[in-house]
């Protein structure tokens, strides 16, 4: 008896909130379907021969299975491992350089006082808005002048410093307690050791978040590689994907197999870095 009346209120409260929850869930699930459907379509198409890709009656599983052929073409028929390696080298190099340049600069901007600080910060913020499209020609001319065309360095050059990273890390470091830095000074840390031993380890969540950004962005970049990559040996994975596409000749199955193959590494990166990524975003307080 007592139990009955005691449990009732809980039920009532549950009932009160559940329609909203359920509706939310349904909408989320529908949205999720819309979001993943292109992937399903892409993977499905990557298994089909060209004449099936655009069939009016879409089937997820191909009538004629051409997956082996398509993926064979992509992975073995071309030096795909080279392309993949190029992408990794370029993205990894970019990321490393960005971290090495951004973390110290962001720390200085957040915690130290020096002349020109405000100007530098202003410049960083202003540069956030400059797309590569605008500066690509002067950069290209510079790359050629330096004799760097068709080198890994030229592929990384415009991205060696990320103003976004500087901005993000600065926000992050601003929240780092001053007292820890002072404690370190009292403990006898030299200033550079403060950066190396305290700031760098503290930046790990922000680094994780930023790494996902950076890696994904440059993995997927086509614009700059199209300009500076000259030889096939230096082609990146995403560039290689585009070579199945032309005005007269699109091999759809192979194109989508290539797209799948290019997309999957980033998915894996994200799946692994997701927690750190979201935590980093939360902690860096991009909110300003």
């Amino acid at each position, binding site marked *: 008896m007592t139990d009955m009346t005691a449990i009732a209120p809980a039920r009532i409260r549950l009932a009160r909130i559940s329609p909203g929850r359920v509706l939310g869930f349904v909408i989320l699930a529908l949205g999720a379907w819309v979001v993943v459907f292109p992937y399903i379509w892409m993977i499905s198409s990557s298994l089909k021969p060209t*004449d099936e890709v655009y069939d009016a009656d879409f089937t997820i599983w191909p009538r004629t299975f051409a997956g082996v052929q398509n993926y064979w073409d992509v992975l073995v028929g071309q030096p795909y491992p080279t392309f993949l390696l190029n992408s990794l080298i370029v993205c990894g190099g970019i990321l490393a350089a960005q971290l090495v340049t951004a973390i110290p600069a962001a720390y200085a901007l957040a915690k130290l006082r020096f002349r020109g600080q405000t100007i530098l910060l202003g410049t960083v913020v202003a540069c956030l808005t400059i797309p590569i499209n605008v500066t690509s020609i002067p950069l290209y001319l510079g790359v*050629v002048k330096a004799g760097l065309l068709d080198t890994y360095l030229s592929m990384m050059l415009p991205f060696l410093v990320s103003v976004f990273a500087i901005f993000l890390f600065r926000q992050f470091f601003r929240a780092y307690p001053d007292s820890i830095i002072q404690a370190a000074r009292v403990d006898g840390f030299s200033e550079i050791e403060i950066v190396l031993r305290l700031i760098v380890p503290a930046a790990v969540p922000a680094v994780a978040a930023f790494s996902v950004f950076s890696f994904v962005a440059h993995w997927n970049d086509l614009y700059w590689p199209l300009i500076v990559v*000259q030889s096939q040996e230096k082609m990146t994975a995403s*560039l290689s994907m585009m070579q*199945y596409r032309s*005005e*007269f*000749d*699109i*091999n759809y199955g192979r194109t989508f197999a290539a797209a799948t193959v290019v997309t999957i590494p980033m998915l894996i990166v994200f799946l692994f870095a997701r927690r750190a990524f979201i935590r980093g975003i939360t902690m860096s307080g991009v909110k300003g």
Partner: protein
Amino acid sequence: QVEITCLTNAGHLSRQHEPLAQMFNEMQDEVRVTYAAPAQNYADTHLKLFRASATNTLPDCAFEAYNQLPSLARALAERGQIIDLGQFMETEGGDWVADNYSEQMLKLGQVDGTQYGMPFNASVIQWYVNADLLEQAGTSVEDFPTDWDGVLALAAKIDALGDDIEGISYAVDQWGDDWPFQVLIEQQGGAMLNDAGDAVAFDEDDRGLKAMEIARRIVEEGGYDPATDLETQTTAFTEGKLGIYANSPASAKLLQERVGGAFDLRSVKFTVWDDANGTLPTGGNAAIMLTQDEAKQKAVWEYFKFLTGPKGQEITAKNTGYLPTNKAALKDEYLGAYYAENPYFATPSSQYDRAGAWYGYPGTQSEKIWREQRSIIRAVMLGETTPEDGAAQLKTAAEDLMTR
């Protein structure tokens, strides 16, 4: 061993150049051919070459579309960055040239009288036909009309077959440049520019206006829907939802692949107005030599000879459907027998003598002119602009920009 690097665009690289280069490299061992990272399309090739020219980082050879060749060649010639191929042809001596190339073909690679390019790919527009739909409309491929009125009437008939069936696709307003528009001018026996190449001539004898009138009729009578994009039209055709489809023979192989066995796919000679003088602009690209190094020049020439030779052209034609640029390639041992067996692929060769010039405008603004003109043509096709106004606008657009 001399190593040379060539630039081509992506679609061509995988289907044509890779097998050719591989074969060439295996055939001999003085020259080794590699390909640069491909451009995305003709326009991108053009851009890449200009960029490379400005910074002196040109590849050893490249494949440039005919219509853009003049502007490129002139600029590069001024900087001494492009090689006249005439000297190499001479050294071959004898009847070599005459045995292999027609005047008409060689002309495609000439700019201001200099042979800067060896024609590698050539294509003139042709009709692709869904024979099943024709049958349903009560006719057959064999009876395919030879005049525009007939083609449009047939298109209308097919269009009436069903809600989701379209009659004709001829995207005058959509292709990468103004190729389909040039078709409409040249099939009347006209030219885009005067002989000096410095003044607009497509309006002579009201050809511009007539071209616009056909364009409009294709919509009005043939049931073409300019609102659908190219991609969709191609798909509609390969899905059996479109009766008559105009496109380059370069797509023959691809279309065949995409159609599979879905319907009876045929190709038919393109319709011209002026059977005597009418030509069709030849699409495609020429191989150009850019290296300054003499050893490399020799090597490049060797490669060009192979590419544009009968074997190279045979392979190219079989892989794509392009019209072979080499006369000798039509011999039985190369393509002759093949064409006899595969009439679907033989249509280009039947239009061999129609192959006319593919114009580009003087100055640097061809791309912009084409873009403007496509908008104008689209407006005409949609009925937003009268053919008269459209024709006038086409001329103005060209004249305004070709001086720059």
